[in-house]
């Protein structure tokens, strides 16, 4: 059992939890994730490690309530426990130690981008961050991102705050104004990452994305998480989750992410809750 030590409601559909998992905290690196199981009859779902505190033996999880299991997790309070937390899984991100890097986070994707921005910042890299959400009240971790960024741009789809438009649009604007970057790291919903890599592709700027496909065991056994990268099948849980975004087959990834939409509806119907698709 893994105790929840703090819980914050970041937006109506996004929650942050700090969880006691000393062994995971000791080894965690930016880019890695854990597999979580909330109940005895529960699914195994991957969640990115948004932050870790080796001294306190805790990891931070940020999740959006998109389906049955994330909703169930969202009902847990401080002092409650999560049944299973295993990790850290995946290959740690290979981060630059100098230069100028843009960290792009869309929606709940700001959470996985944060540990990378933080590590880059601590290594002395100039971090420019672009974060966004559909609306300003759905934006998460703005202050945390500001603290590790030389410059932070906020975007909202509805124009309720900052740049009116997508994060990829803001990136395009910066590049058009002549800004130079050594690398882009983009994490968020698949369409957002796809739009971002199309912005950087013509300029040949290396762009890393972090994929979050459906997983079962998460340890390299089941193959549910396969993605096509550079024309080859990769297993996201052991080969990823970070890949060269220009090589990723996003159309396939989007299609595969929708494999259980029907079953997800059944599960949500059963628990009497509606899916938050924000």
């Amino acid at each position, binding site marked *: 059992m893994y105790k929840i030590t703090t819980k914050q409601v970041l937006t109506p559909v996004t929650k942050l939890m700090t969880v006691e998992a000393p062994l995971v905290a000791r*080894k965690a690196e930016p880019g890695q994730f854990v597999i979580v199981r909330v109940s005895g009859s529960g699914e*195994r779902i991957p969640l990115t490690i948004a932050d870790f505190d080796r001294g306190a033996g805790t990891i931070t999880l940020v999740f959006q309530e998109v389906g049955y299991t994330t909703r169930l997790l969202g009902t847990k309070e401080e002092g409650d426990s999560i049944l299973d937390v*295993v*990790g850290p899984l995946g290959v740690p991100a290979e981060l630059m130690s100098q230069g100028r890097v843009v960290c792009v986070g869309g929606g709940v994707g700001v959470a996985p981008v944060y540990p990378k921005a933080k590590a880059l910042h601590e290594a002395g890299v100039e971090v420019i961050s672009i974060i966004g959400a559909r609306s300003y009240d759905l934006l998460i971790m703005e202050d945390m991102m500001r603290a590790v960024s030389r410059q932070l741009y906020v975007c909202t789809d509805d124009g309720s705050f900052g740049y009116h438009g997508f994060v990829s649009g803001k990136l395009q604007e910066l590049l058009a104004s002549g800004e130079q970057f050594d690398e882009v790291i983009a994490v968020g919903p698949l369409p957002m990452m796809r739009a971002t890599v199309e912005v950087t592709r013509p300029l040949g700027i290396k762009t890393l994305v972090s994929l979050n496909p459906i997983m079962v065991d998460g340890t390299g*056994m*089941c*193959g*549910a998480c396969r993605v096509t990268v550079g024309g080859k099948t990769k297993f996201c849980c052991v080969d990823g989750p970070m890949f060269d975004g220009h090589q990723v087959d996003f159309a396939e990834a989007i299609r595969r992410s929708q494999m*259980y939409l029907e079953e997800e509806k059944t599960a949500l119907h059963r628990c009497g809750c509606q899916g938050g698709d924000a």
Partner: protein
Amino acid sequence: MAERQGRVKMPAQPASERVRNFNEVNLGFDAELARQEALRCIQCKKPLCIQGCPVRVKIPEFIQLIVDGDFMGAARTIKETNNLPAICGRVCPQEEQCEKVCILGKRFEPVAIGRLERFAADWELRQGVEPPRLPERRPGKVAVVGAGPAGLTCAGDLALRGYEVTIFEALHAPGGVLIYGIPEFRLPKAIVKAEVDYVLSLGVKLETNVIIGRTLTVDDLFLEGYDAVFLGTGAGLPKFMNIPGENLNGVYSANEWLTRTNLMKAYQFPEWDTPVRAGQRVAVVGGGNVAMDAVRCALRLGAEEATIVYRRSRQEMPARAEEVDHAEHEGVQFKFLCNPTRILGNDRGWVTGIECIRMELGEPDASGRRRPVEVQGSEFVLDVDTVVMALGTNPNPIVVQTTPGLTAHRWGGLVVDEAGLTSKEAVWAGGDAVTGSATVILAMGAGKTAAEAIMKYLEGKYQA
């Protein structure tokens, strides 16, 4: 003696019924049937059957105890060398091992050793297992990686000799392939739990949710005071064919298909949270036991048609004959001498069919089986909405990548000597991590061999 000729029939759920449930197919002998079958054993002076068993169960001895009506004694005799008898009695390929060399088999059918083993083990489980008295603690602390057949056997043997053992398991529950892979209808999970509990009752500690290579490394284990490590990490990445369409929605590896169905209980969705897309027409590609498990799960999950696609003929199928028979009785169709060439999908990316080419058998290959050769222009399409690839696995790369000094073959299997010692000092390995996809009992045999070697190593270390 006429009754020696044929073995006692195993009571089973009728095919028409069992295909609609996940309950165990074989119901097991009762005491009377068990004694009848046990009486068939001629108690050879030099029993070949023991030689045929990878863990050297004292077969004639336990069978005689069944004849004598001492069923608990029979179970205890088996357990002298086998910590998991109710599991082995169900899933060992006895026809390739102990029963293959049974003298009776030369003229009649061999003694049904596996069924008798199962009977004795089940009897003991029903009566309540008393853990044996353990010897005094010996100096030496061993970390076992993976709570599958290899790891459980290794851990149990070491604990029985007085060593302190901790098993580290990556999943949330122990059992490895016994719980994620082999379906309930062939190996009930309550049986696995009972036998895992027996191993734990020997004093073995279990840490779930620990991935060696990520949560802790092998070197961390030594730093934490373990003297020796056994790696029984099991199957890894599933193999695919690298044909077009394998990433379409509706294509599964057998590992995923079975893990969802068995470990995560997808057949009880939505009471259990994990779904599986069973489809109406399922093709399973492969001819091993895993393929049989997958195809039989498909029927139980509600598929109207479930078909095995195998590139060789029935004779070359590596699956146990009993499993193939069971599948056939349940209505599984077999397309022999067919090999998939691509998987077809609709514009939304879901499987609509599998294109296969007919094969014919040519000259024997390295495995001694006749090599299948394509018949040019013989392609045809099977209309299916789900495809399961049961082609075996490659060992998990995580431990090798994170353990300096550990050598693997190019295909991923760990390099070991005959006792299971790896290239790294005080690290042994066995099971699928060494051999690639093999059987439960071979993994157990490897766990046992390594346990012996580890005991010798620890004796030497603490004598000095």
